[in-house]
């Protein structure tokens, strides 16, 4: 397989094809007649998935650095490049994206009836944006793609959404925009602080920052990504967006868009700000937020009358596991976080698809309106149960591997957080099983539920690969772990290479003063410059004067 791909020159064009292919598809969709739009879109996205699947073999995990690297100058004046690259972390995110997009499009065939061309064009535009986010190795390019994803999602929610779609769309947009604005500021700060006059990833890695700077920049980045994830108190856009979004929108939102946040954690936060990331207050805050997210979201999910909202809240809980795993700063934790990301993409995406099917049939999402569906739709129920079990992390399904590793990793360094997070295992059952029971089991009193049609052929085609993937990852995750391992190691090495001896030793009381860096940091001495970056900082004192330096006459 590898030889075959090499003979195609696969490495040289694949990343560009994945980024721009959807745009070509978008043009095609816009040019195609209205009735054909969905087929065109599906074929394009499926083609892209087929193309991207070659990455599985073509990517060589040894070393864990960026592969398939290519770049071209974009805005030379600022040193902005169109630079793409792929490593063991982005590999899965990209393939997850190309995998879910055709499925989501297929899942929208019956759901979307108005303005179909626009819808499918936006879906493909979204794919371009998301793939670009995962592949960009230039920070400004990354930012552009990051913002680009906002636009199609805004319209998808705002046009094809439910009753409160405008509110949800605006909320989604503003929430995310606030974070990304701060991130832009942080990117610019790092650009000017760095000496390389470049936005490239490596240049940013080499930026020489002191702890104080790192903490502020960390806060800016963390806010942007934390909103995307979403981390506990920043999550309220998610249930609204999910509930109002059309099924394919929810699927993409859950499967891919949320991952942009956690991907940002892994790709940017940890390597860029190793001192901040190791700062006890930061770690404590992030872990506390992760744990609170797990438990809180599970509780809130359990009492939701709207099934879709329930699943939306479970996303918050799942992503809490990612946060806990990532900020444990251990190999197992990071890998576990990544697997949770993949698994959550698959299982929650599948749940949204299933709920979408229910909505198409019954035009309601309230749990109480259902019941006994397993009798009238056994295939549907089987798929639903398997998906739900994967979602709550039963061993043998994808959810378990990720959660187990994340918790294990967290336990190695932060046992208290891990213990608290592990209660999420119990609460997962507490929210998921009652829903499964009230939707699928119990007597089917409503005649409409007795007539509930089973999975159609198209729906079976949608669910089969998802279910297969859940079980594959659950039973044999090693190929996944092997591919992501070296890249995760690199991230961790980068973090561990920098110590923060200058800061106070870890003591238990730091948890009490969480939230206020200034208070904690004020008495601390500035840390010595790290040995990593040897180049001196260029003085910016020279005034960029309009008038030249001349003595007065």
């Amino acid at each position, binding site marked *: 397989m590898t030889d075959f791909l090499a003979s195609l020159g696969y490495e040289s064009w694949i990343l560009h094809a994945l980024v721009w292919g959807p745009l070509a598809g978008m043009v095609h969709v816009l040019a195609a007649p209205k009735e054909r739009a969905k087929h065109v879109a599906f074929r394009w996205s499926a083609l892209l998935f087929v193309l991207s699947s070659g990455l599985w073999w073509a990517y060589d995990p040894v070393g864990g650095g960026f592969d398939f690297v290519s770049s071209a100058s974009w805005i030379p004046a600022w040193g902005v490049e169109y630079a793409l690259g792929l490593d063991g972390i982005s590999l899965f995110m990209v393939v997850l994206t190309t995998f879910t997009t055709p499925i989501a499009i297929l899942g929208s065939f019956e759901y979307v009836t108005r303005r179909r061309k626009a819808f499918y064009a936006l879906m493909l535009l979204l794919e371009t944006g998301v793939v670009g986010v995962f592949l960009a190795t230039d920070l400004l390019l990354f930012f552009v793609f990051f913002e680009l994803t906002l636009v199609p999602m805004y319209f998808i929610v705002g046009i094809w959404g439910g009753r409160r779609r405008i509110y949800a769309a605006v909320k989604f947009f503003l929430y995310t925009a606030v974070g990304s604005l701060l991130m832009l500021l942080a990117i610019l700060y790092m650009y000017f602080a760095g000496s390389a006059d470049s936005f490239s990833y490596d240049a940013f890695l080499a930026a020489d920052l002191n702890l104080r700077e790192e903490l502020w920049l960390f806060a800016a980045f963390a806010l942007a990504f934390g909103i995307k994830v979403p981390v506990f108190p920043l999550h309220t856009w998610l249930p609204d967006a999910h509930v109002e979004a059309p099924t394919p929108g929810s699927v993409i939102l859950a499967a891919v868009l949320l991952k942009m946040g956690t991907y940002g954690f892994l790709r940017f936060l940890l390597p860029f700000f190793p001192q901040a990331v190791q700062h006890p207050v930061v770690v404590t805050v992030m872990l506390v937020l992760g744990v609170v997210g797990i438990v809180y979201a599970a509780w809130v999910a359990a009492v939701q009358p709207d099934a879709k909202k329930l699943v939306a809240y479970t996303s918050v809980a799942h992503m809490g596991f990612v946060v806990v795993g990532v900020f444990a700063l251990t190999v197992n934790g990071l890998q576990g976080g990544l697997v949770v990301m993949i698994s959550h993409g698959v299982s929650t995406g599948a749940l949204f698809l299933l709920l979408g099917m229910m909505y198409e049939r019954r035009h309601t999402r309230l749990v109480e309106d259902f019941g006994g569906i397993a009798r009238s739709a056994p295939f549907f129920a089987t798929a639903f149960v398997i998906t739900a079990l994967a979602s709550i992390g039963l061993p043998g399904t994808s959810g378990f591997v990720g959660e187990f590793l994340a918790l294990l990793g967290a336990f190695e360094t932060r046992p208290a957080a891990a213990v608290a997070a592990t209660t999420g295992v119990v609460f997962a059952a507490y929210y998921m099983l009652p829903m499964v029971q009230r939707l699928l089991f119990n007597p089917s009193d409503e005649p409409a539920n007795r007539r509930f049609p089973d999975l159609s052929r198209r729906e079976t085609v949608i669910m089969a690969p998802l279910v297969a993937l859940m079980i594959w990852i659950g039973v044999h995750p090693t190929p996944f772990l092997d591919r992501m391992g070296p890249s995760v190691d690199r991230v961790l090495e980068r973090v561990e290479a920098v110590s923060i001896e200058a800061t106070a030793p870890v003591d238990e009381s730091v948890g009490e003063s969480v939230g206020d860096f200034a208070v904690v940091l004020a008495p601390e001495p500035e840390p010595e410059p790290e040995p990593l970056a040897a180049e001196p900082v260029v003085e910016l004192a020279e005034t960029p004067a309009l*008038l*030249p330096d*001349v003595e007065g*006459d």
Partner: protein
Amino acid sequence: MLVEHALLLSALLFVIGSLGVVVRRNAIIVFLCIELQLNAVNLAFTAISRHVGIEGQVFVFFVMTVAAAEAAVGLAVIISIFRHYGTVGVDKFNLLKW
């Protein structure tokens, strides 16, 4: 020293011009005051050209061209406003408010 004093004069003219823009109601006179401000700026450019080179004067040339164009369009606007409202008092219409 001439340059510095020319600059002070340009500052004075500019301020008087802007005062006129703010306190007068007659559109024509407001417009005249704007021209006055432009002239003040031109004076500053010309003065500074003694220190930075001929570009200062080139800039003045461009400003004059733009001023001419602006005068043409601006006066045309005033004419059509006058046609519509029968006045050139700028406090009589508030087209800028939605």
